């Protein structure tokens, strides 16, 4: 099993562990129909709340991870761009200095100085250009990160809303069934309990 599948499997069980086993609820209803139904309904609501809280906590972790990944990438890429700029400046300065020093015996001419200056100016322009490109690219990355987080949060909110809708429908179903049963057989459970007590 791949790591991802294992993670998914555990995550899934983790979420479902918040939803109580049917057996627990079954016992409640068998003991007393009215209060049992009420208690089972309360527990269903509590279970969904717990599952929702877990989903929200996990979603927050994902958002934190997206931010961390972006920040790490920005730090790494900024350092890379700075290194590139430093290298360019160093190389240009060396080429210009070599030109002035080595071109003519006894020192550089005016042409050498102009040529050296041109190298340095071009290096400056190149590094400014590089800096701009890096800034634009990094800003785009940061913007994309925010958009990704926004989209992810929307999906999470929608999933939680859908879960809440199912919870409401489920609770209504159990509650209605309890009410119907109580209306059809208003004294069944009490009588049964009393009969059982009398027999004992």
């Amino acid at each position, binding site marked *: 099993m791949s790591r991802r599948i294992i993670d998914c499997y555990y995550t899934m069980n983790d979420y479902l562990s*918040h939803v109580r086993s049917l057996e627990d609820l079954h016992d409640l209803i068998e003991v007393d129909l009215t209060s049992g139904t009420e208690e089972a309904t309360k527990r269903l609501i509590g*279970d969904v709340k717990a*599952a929702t809280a877990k989903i929200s906590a996990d979603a927050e972790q*994902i958002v934190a991870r997206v931010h961390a990944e972006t920040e790490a990438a920005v730090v790494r890429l900024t350092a*890379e761009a700075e290194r590139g700029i430093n290298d360019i400046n160093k190389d240009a300065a060396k080429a210009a200095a070599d*030109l002035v020093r*080595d071109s003519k015996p006894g020192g550089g001419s005016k042409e050498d100085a102009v040529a*050296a200056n041109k190298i340095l100016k071009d290096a400056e322009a190149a590094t400014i250009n590089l800096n701009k490109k890096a800034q634009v690219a990094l800003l785009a990355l940061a913007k994309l990160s925010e958009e990704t987080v926004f989209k*992810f949060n929307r999906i999470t909110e929608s999933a939680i809303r*859908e879960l809440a809708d199912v919870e409401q429908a489920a609770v209504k179903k159990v509650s209605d069934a309890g009410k119907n049963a109580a209306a059809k057989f208003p004294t069944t459970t009490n009588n049964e309990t009393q009969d059982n007590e009398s027999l004992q």
Partner: protein
Amino acid sequence: MTAAEVIKSLAQAAGEINRATALANEKIQRASDEAILTIKKASKTVSIMINDAIDAANEKIFRTAETEIAKAVGEEEAEFFDLAPLKDRWAKRK
């Protein structure tokens, strides 16, 4: 009989909640994978963009130095200038 009806409803409700929880989890898992992948891909793209910009700058400096040195000292003399480190930095990155 009445308890059985309520329990049946309860079983259905619990089943629906289980399915909805699993579905919500699946959706979030998918969205989470997609979000992380998007950032990783974008980081890679930005890295390529920055490296391309560094390459372009290195190439520009190499070309300028080559041209200006040749102009200043002449083609023959220019050969004595060591531009290999400049050229290497650009060529190696490529």
